[in-house]
């Protein structure tokens, strides 16, 4: 069985292809969305998902979120006394999803397809694969998120001919893909995106707005607990404004309570620069597909942030039509990756469907150009694989050394679209020794091979000797070697994972602790006593006694939710 995983910035999901359809799998709390959060509990065990998210505010130094943003980089995230790479934290999420799938399916799971933003770079893709490996999953296939969303939509209408655009604004990334469907072929025509633009940025913008409007001292920014609570307020207000005209952000800094009333216009003003950034990828995707927006049959929204009315309105004006929202934008990517699992397993229901994808960015090398007999212009980018070429693809170009004397060429490999390499992303370099000889003999053929998973291989062949230098791109600190992956795999295995069957109670306690932090005075003491009572019940390990205690505590928390005692409590 292959499972499909949508490893998101904010939430992750797992799904399978079963009985001719995509099925989402619930976690141990009975929910399909597992927050992409990891926390180290007091006893050193690892909490994943909602329990960890509850602890973001109460234990910010032991909890991590939005680490997908750091995938492919060398950045370490500290939880308690241990530091983690983003791959490791992602691996912990994947492990938890894998356990959920195994519990639901009743069979061991060893293989997964994981979705990545279409615009994820080589290093980010490698990091995602490494995370899978560390979680004990074979990840032969990565799938681009907007392609997955399109699969979810397209699978039911693959006989018809259609062109559509997927507008995928998730928690941390923005992707646009244009697809054409005909005769059972689902062909991605173009993809574009922004890896640092998502719903999280909207929340951050509201936090900034709060600091400005309420005139909070900057030192509060150092207080990670305060910042997490304010972030949660921003998140809440953002959501509330989706369904009501006003929302309030409210927070206590220990001395005074601050609050800020927000309406739609305020939200729009706060995230205007972000909304403007949505435009460029859409324009690029349409141009590259050689289409006018009027030629699109449908615009599909995916990603939780497309729930914002603001974003929907913008999409409507950009395309001159209302977008399709038949499927839940939080779930559409997971449903699509399940379809891909079915395709990979050659499920009979999908035998007449083939999907092809593209390389979302150009890949090439640095080039010098001769201006006249004596002068050169350096630093030009020469693409070998142009963006939006259908993959898998292998392309070769021949180059000549700039001078007759050099004994080697150093190929600098770049990814990006700018004319000059300084504005593109360096992927690595490859040193090729050159023989003596004339210009033709010293020519080298540079071959770029880009596979369906978006991983690049570079090969250089010297004309005279025929010698080939097949090199995996190296020198990128964000990419782990196989050996390092194995080491991390081992060290992760030593971590104690919180028992799955106790996660529900642990999550409830984490939530109670979060409320406790927000309450003051008598209410706080009272909730403290309730928490202690529940902990004592848990210690008895007697399920018959724990169950009613769990219900009682949950009811108390639900009541508190509706009160005004908490930050941002609506008092409704």
């Amino acid at each position, binding site marked *: 069985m292959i499972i499909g995983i949508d490893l998101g910035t904010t939430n992750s999901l797992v799904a399978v292809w079963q009985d001719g359809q995509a099925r989402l799998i619930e976690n141990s709390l009975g929910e399909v969305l597992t927050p992409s959060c990891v926390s180290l509990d007091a006893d050193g065990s690892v909490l994943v998902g909602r329990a960890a998210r509850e602890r973001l505010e109460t234990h910010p130094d032991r909890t991590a979120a939005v680490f997908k943003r750091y995938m492919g980089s060398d950045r370490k995230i500290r939880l308690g006394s241990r530091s983690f790479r983003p791959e490791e934290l992602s691996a912990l999420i994947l492990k938890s999803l894998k356990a959920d799938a195994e519990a639901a399916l009743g069979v061991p799971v060893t293989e997964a397809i994981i979705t990545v933003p279409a615009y994820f770079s080589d290093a980010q893709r490698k990091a995602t694969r490494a995370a899978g490996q560390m979680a004990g999953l074979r990840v032969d296939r990565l799938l681009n998120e907007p392609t997955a969303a399109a699969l979810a939509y397209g699978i039911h209408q693959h006989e018809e001919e259609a062109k559509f655009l997927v507008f995928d604004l998730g928690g941390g990334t923005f992707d646009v893909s244009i697809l054409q469907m005909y005769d059972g072929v689902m062909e991605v025509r173009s993809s574009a995106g922004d890896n640092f633009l998502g719903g999280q940025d909207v929340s951050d913008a509201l936090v900034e707005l709060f600091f400005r409007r309420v005139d909070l001292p900057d030192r509060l920014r150092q207080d990670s607990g305060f910042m997490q609570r304010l972030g949660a307020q921003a998140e809440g207000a953002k959501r509330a404004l989706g369904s009501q005209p006003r929302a309030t952000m409210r927070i206590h800094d220990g001395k005074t309570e601050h609050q800020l009333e927000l309406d739609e216009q305020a939200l729009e003003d706060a995230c205007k620069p972000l909304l403007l950034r949505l435009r460029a990828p859409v324009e690029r995707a349409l*141009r590259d597909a050689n289409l006018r927006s009027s030629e699109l049959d449908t615009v599909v929204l995916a990603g939780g942030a497309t729930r914002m009315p603001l974003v929907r*309105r913008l999409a409507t004006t950009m395309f001159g039509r209302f977008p399709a929202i038949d499927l839940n934008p939080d779930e559409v990517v997971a449903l699509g990756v399940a379809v891909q699992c079915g395709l990979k397993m050659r499920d009979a229901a999908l035998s007449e469907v083939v999907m092809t994808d593209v390389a979302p960015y150009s890949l090439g090398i640095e080039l010098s150009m001769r201006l006249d007999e004596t002068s050169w212009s350096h630093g030009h980018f020469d693409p070998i694989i142009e*963006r939006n070429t259908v993959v898998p693809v292998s392309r070769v170009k021949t180059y000549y050394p700039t001078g007759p004397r050099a004994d080697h060429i150093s190929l600098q490999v770049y990814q990006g679209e700018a004319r000059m390499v300084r504005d593109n992303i360096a992927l690595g370099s490859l040193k090729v020794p050159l023989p003596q000889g004339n210009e033709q003999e010293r020519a080298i053929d540079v071959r770029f091979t880009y596979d369906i998973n978006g991983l690049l291989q570079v090969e250089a062949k010297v004309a005279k000797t025929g010698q080939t230098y097949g090199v995996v791109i190296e020198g990128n600190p964000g990419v782990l070697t196989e050996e390092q992956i194995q080491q991390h795999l081992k060290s992760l295995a030593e971590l104690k994972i919180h028992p799955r069957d106790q996660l529900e109670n642990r999550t409830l306690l984490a939530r109670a602790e979060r409320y406790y932090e927000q309450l003051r005075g008598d209410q706080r003491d009272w909730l403290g006593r309730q928490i202690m009572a529940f902990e004592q019940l848990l210690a008895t390990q007697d399920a018959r006694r724990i169950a009613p205690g769990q219900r009682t505590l949950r009811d108390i928390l639900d009541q508190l939710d509706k009160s005004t005692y908490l930050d941002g409590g609506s008092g409704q």
Partner: protein
Amino acid sequence: MSALPPFLAALELDPATDPDERALRRAYARRLKQIDVEAEPARFQALREALDQGLRWVAWRDQQRPVQAPAPEPLPELAPSPAPTLARPTQADTAPAPTARDAPRARPEPDAGTLPPPSAAPAPQPDPDALAAAVFARLQQRIGEGLADAETTRTLLLRFLGDPDLASIDARVAFELAVARLLGGAWRPGHEHLLDPAIEAFGWNSDHARLKHFGQLGAMLTAAIRERGTVQAFGPAQRIALDALLARIRSEAPPDPALLAEDVPQLQRLVERVPNWLRIVSPVAPSTSASSCGASGRPRRRRPRRAWRRASEPPPGAPAA
């Protein structure tokens, strides 16, 4: 169409059926389902290239067929815009598209982008081409009025790009094409200030492929942008001399005979090195410049522009677009 293009064989198509895009894609789909893309990447790539060649060939053939075919550009023509030198300064007169223009709508001046108001109803969409043409006409008029410098032009261009009438993607593309055409056309005073802001506003430098969609025009602008890099690398003295020379060429005053003797060879060098850039920022058009400068009509020397030049690839079975 005497020889059988190889892509037809690869797609197992009968040339007698005179295939169109639909037929090509259908044939490709049929073959594709017999291939395991993951396990046989080379086979897939060969098939895919056959389709791409076929599509290019069909596009080319369809362009050739009607004699009155439009210029080979993938983007639609703009609605005819008013003559470039409209001397009248009244703004209302230059907006031919009345659809969405209720007269005194406030336009935030230096703001680069304006979102539609929250209540903007999306229902009836005005023609994006007409909207773009109207905004472009206003830009053109302002340029015709003689703008002081690149900074003013930049602010102006960004403001126009933020115009709600350019909210639709299609309108933006049409607007960009219009600006590209203006630059690619004959030089008029003010154009020299437009190139740099246009490169910035449309991201022509940050996206190497963006101008490709403009066909010949795009190729010319691409060359001009590369040449601009050369000019920017000039030393200060060279730069001052260049600016002075360009100012003299642009000036309508009759040339000073004393300076002419120096200017002509200098201009000749520029024509050789940065012909496309020169054509955009000055009235010197490379095709006519040789004779107008009184130099011998010697054709421009061809030399390898790239040191690491690309080896010539076998030409595809059909002419590329």
